[in-house]
């Protein structure tokens, strides 16, 4: 198994860098159609940290997120949630926002209610969280509108507050603003920043280096299903050490197969 072992917090950033990992992956591999798409990834997500995952299309970013969230099973390796193998209960401590928001064919409020009701929250607690989420999303006027007629930005805002209403300890976001205008992107980023301030760990896949700087503490750069570089987001973006990251940040196409050593 190739060694791409990186401790996310290697350059020892401040804050909770020394806290035990909330979520760890060890030797994570994923194969599909006879191809290895994720190849031996080790990663630690620490409480309250913001980790940005970058890389070219097909680098394995979305797959990594799905593996960490337990939506797909790794071919090899394991995902540990608070030191134990990730299971359904562990996943309830996480939430995910997809690139295209998946909203139910119901009203805005009913979408929130569904997410909270399936967790078995008692009525008063559920209503309090609904109200809080409606306020946070600033979608209050649209509470009874069918969710799927909202604009793209509003839909994604609803998806983010729905995820946060579940009070996750880790929030995964898979290119949440890829098709949004700057105003909508700003609204999403503010929600993510607020969540981070309240202690939620963030794992964000993005193509936008500006967003990576605004929202990232740590950055993981993937190429060919492997981590080719990891470190402090700003440092990595300013002075990438790996050829793959350098090429990508300069807008060049990098076609060489990844080297085991970054």
């Amino acid at each position, binding site marked *: 198994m190739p060694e791409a072992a990186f401790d996310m917090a290697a350059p020892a950033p401040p804050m909770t860098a020394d806290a035990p990992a909330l979520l760890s992956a060890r030797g994570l591999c994923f194969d599909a159609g006879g191809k290895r798409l994720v190849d031996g990834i080790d990663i630690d997500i620490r409480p309250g940290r913001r980790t940005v995952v970058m890389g070219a299309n097909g680098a394995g970013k979305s797959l990594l997120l799905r593996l960490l969230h337990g939506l797909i099973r790794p071919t090899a390796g394991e995902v540990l949630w608070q030191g134990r193998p990730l299971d359904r209960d562990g996943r309830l401590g996480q*939430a995910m926002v997809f690139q295209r928001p998946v909203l139910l064919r119901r009203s805005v409020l009913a979408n929130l209610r569904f997410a909270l009701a*399936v967790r078995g929250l008692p009525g008063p607690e559920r209503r309090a969280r609904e109200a809080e989420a409606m306020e946070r999303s600033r979608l209050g006027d649209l509470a009874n509108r069918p969710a799927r007629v909202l604009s793209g930005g509003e839909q994604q805002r609803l998806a983010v507050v729905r995820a946060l209403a*579940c009070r996750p300890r880790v929030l995964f976001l898979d290119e949440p603003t890829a098709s949004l205008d700057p105003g909508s992107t700003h609204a999403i980023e503010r929600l993510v920043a607020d969540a981070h301030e309240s202690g939620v760990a963030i794992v964000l896949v993005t193509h936008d280096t500006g967003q990576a700087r605004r929202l990232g503490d740590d950055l993981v750069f993937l190429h060919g299903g492997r981590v080719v570089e990891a470190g402090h987001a700003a440092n990595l973006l300013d002075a990438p050490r790996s050829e793959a990251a350098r090429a990508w940040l300069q807008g060049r196409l990098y076609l060489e197969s990844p080297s085991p050593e970054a």
Partner: protein
Amino acid sequence: MDGFWQVLGEAAGLILAWDSDLIEIVGLSLRVTLTAVAISCVIGLPLGAAVGAFRFPGRTAAIVVLNSLMGLPPVVVGLMAYLMLSAAGPLGPLQLLYTPAAMIIAQTILVTPLIAALSRQVVEDCYREYAEQFDSLGVGPLDRAAALLWDARYSLLTVALAGFGRAVAEVGAVIIVGGNINHVTRVMTTTIALETSKGNLELALALGVVLLALAVAVNGAVMALRASAVRMAYA
């Protein structure tokens, strides 16, 4: 051709005069078919949702069986129901043969596979979109099935209307178990068959017109539902 127009005129007269025989026959048809479709929905919708949303051994075989049963010939269904309900059959003691209840049972057998098979497809399409989000939210199996049935409600209403169309128009099943007894088990399709063979074309044609009008009304309802579902992005 004069004969045709004359018959058509007399048929229209029967409808406009609100002929009591006609009303009774149409009423029984609707009662039998609506009840059968309601029972079929209670059985077929959850069955379709379960097959559409869950993975289990034998699932492909279940889909093949459901899809095949969709095309059950009504006379075969009538024969099976007759064997079950006849004096020597397992349900013989209930003495339901030649009653509206027997017709409801036959039509339920006819329509349930149709509703299950079509709703399986509808639910599966919806689930393809929701599956990852449901996994992410930790939605349990029962909540999944219920949510899918609710979210596909507009498409499933169309499915129910398709079931109604099949049941109200069939003649083979109800004529075998109902017996086409005057004032007891005589419905639109069986009356048309009987009266045509007797040469009593006015009543037959009047009922034919009512059946066609029902078909148009059902299709109109489907279109209206579709339009409102699309407007709310629920389709």
